[in-house]
């Protein structure tokens, strides 16, 4: 069976710069797919090509098995887009904005009005529905920006950095809305450089940098590439010569302080981790060495990105 969305070898060039280089991935119905990468990685360009706002130099996009054609506007009916920048009319009220955008997707009459009320409730703007959006806070505008994209119950919702510049409360509200939408069967493409959000919202993700796809898999599979690390700081610079630790552990000097580091690739084996920690602590105690602090480094997408590209995600 064909995936809901199939992106096949998309290429976009601006002169000598290749903004998107042979990008391919699929999104299944009801799936939340993350597109992770730093600013300038090519995420927004890819999103614009998928939603038909930008012509691809090469490659194609298929939605529900049908090729998306920029010259056929009706092919965009089943897709919703939350653009990176706000795209609402400040001189219209929240209700007027939604009535207008809903009507563009051929909703009308009582069905349109009901849907507006429902979406306003969903994003928590019912109380301010008839106020001009110019008077809204940044977070409220973001929520309305989101609401305008889901008026027509799209089968695929594309979100391009939907939480940029949003206060924590609105961010939590938005993420809750997105999760709720995904649970009701809408497929999501979530492009962000906030890896925590991608990890919370998405089940599968692709990592992009310089227009290229570096990795694409389920989040747990992606995280398996990164070891779980434990770091014990000893509070002294010297360690006795006879100290023997587990073979995978190593003792390093970090400034004036000795540090014991060890890692495990298999996160599921908690027993092995417990055993290693216990053994090392016992060995240190036998040599009367006290531990000043213990720190763990869990696998995450940020560390995966660092491993794949050699630089941090927000560089």
């Amino acid at each position: 069976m064909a995936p809901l969305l199939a992106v096949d070898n998309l290429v976009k060039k601006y002169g000598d710069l290749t903004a998107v280089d042979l990008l391919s991935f699929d999104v299944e119905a009801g799936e939340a797919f993350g597109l992770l990468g730093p600013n300038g990685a090519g995420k927004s360009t890819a999103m614009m090509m998928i939603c038909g706002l930008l012509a691809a130099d090469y490659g194609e996009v298929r939605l529900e098995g049908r090729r998306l054609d920029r010259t056929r506007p009706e092919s965009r009916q089943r897709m919703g887009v939350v653009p990176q920048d706000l795209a609402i009319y400040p001189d219209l009220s929240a209700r007027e904005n939604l009535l207008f955008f809903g009507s563009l997707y051929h909703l009308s009459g009582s069905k349109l009005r009901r849907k507006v009320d429902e979406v306003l409730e969903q994003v928590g703007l019912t109380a301010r529905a008839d106020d001009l959006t110019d008077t809204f806070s940044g977070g409220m505008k973001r929520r309305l920006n989101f609401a305008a994209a889901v008026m027509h119950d799209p089968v695929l919702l594309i979100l391009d950095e939907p939480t940029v510049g949003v206060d924590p409360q609105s961010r939590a509200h938005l993420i809750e809305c997105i999760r709720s939408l995904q649970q009701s069967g809408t497929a999501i493409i979530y492009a962000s450089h906030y890896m925590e959000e991608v990890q919370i919202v998405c089940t599968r993700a692709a990592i992009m940098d310089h227009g290229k796809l570096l990795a694409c898999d389920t989040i747990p599979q992606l995280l398996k590439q990164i070891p779980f690390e434990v770091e014990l700081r000893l509070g002294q610079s010297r360690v006795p010569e006879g100290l023997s630790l587990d073979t995978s552990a190593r003792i390093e000097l970090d400034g004036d302080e000795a540090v014991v580091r060890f890692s495990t690739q298999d996160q599921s084996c908690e027993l092995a981790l417990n055993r290693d920690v216990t053994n090392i602590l016992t060995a240190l105690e036998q040599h009367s060495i006290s531990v000043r602090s213990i720190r763990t480094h869990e696998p995450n997408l940020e560390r995966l990105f660092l491993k794949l590209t050699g630089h941090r995600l927000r560089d």
Partner: protein
Amino acid sequence: MISTDAFKITLKDLRLLSRDRRALVILVAMPMVIIAIVGSSTGRLRDNREQSRQGLTIEVADFNQSETSRRLAGFLASYDSVKVRRAEISNRSDAKVLERFSVERPTDENDMRLVIRPGFESRIRELSTTLLTSPDESTRKEGLANVNLALISNETAADPMMEGLAKSLVKLSLQNAILPILAEKVPSFRGAARDSVIPVAWETAAVKAGTPDTGNRVYQFFIPSYTVMFVFFLVNIMGRSFLSERDLGTLGRLRIAPISSTAILIGKTLPFFILSLAQTIILMISGRLLFGMSWGPQPWLLLPIMFCTSAAATALGLMFSTLAKTESQVSSVGNLILLSSAGISGCLVPRAWMPPLSQKISLLTPHAWALDAYSELLTKEMPSIAAIGQSCGMLLLFSAVFYVVGLYRFRADG
């Protein structure tokens, strides 16, 4: 489907425009104010509309009471745009009365006063045949005073154009008035003198019955000119609207909606077309009610002119909107286009005053064709429908070219 989608965008933009007070002020209030200011500077506001409707009003103070002086006033009254009033003179032999009429300016109802001094006819008889056959020569050196005439203008009407016009009309009338005297000296003029009959008794010709309502002639020029100029101010407002839609990101949202780019363009253009028509209608109605302007003998012909002018203005606005990239481009380039095209086309200075080459160049602007159509309708007793049709056709041609370029640019950008 395109029309339905376009209509949705049009309704949205009309709602936004109704909340944009700056646009409404620029499009409606500003032209009204400018027309009123320019109009009032000519002394032809509504209060003296009746006087203005008659064109030039000349009060004749006849201290000579001769056949020639009566003929002079009579021929003067025979001009279409001249109304002659007889001054009430208490005592013609009183020098003080003559002095007062010669020095004091005429009252507001009269633009000019022609004083025919007591020695007028005898002075004419004294002139040589050469001077009589060329009255222009006889008045060149010392002016009308050489033949015992004086022309005094009203304070509010004291502009060189009006004085020049009045002086020319007096000289032309004088040529006819002196024909009997000339015939006495030169027999070959007898036939001309016999045929030279005053068209109507000037004392009763104050109001010419049956003369079509040609309206207040000043506003017949000002109102269409400023209306056309300000209709094209839409170019700026449309540019701002498109730019704002682009900056707000809503143009992108429109483009990713399941509607065609043609529907977007029509939807974005139609509100301004409606606004432009409303603007023109308001200015024309105001022109009639406030300034006594005439809509011409066939007012229904205003409709195709308004329609085609608005179509050309909105299509130009559309093209400009797809070419302008920044707010400063809209302001600077937009104003440059508007003011220069208004100047070239004859919105600011009548085309008739321009050199022939400039008149030809002006036809490269849609404004000039619109002005031609308005001029044909509003200033002629029998406007030519063919001439108006030609102007409207040219305006539609401009509209089509502008629209096609705009559509091409819009699609190329997307």
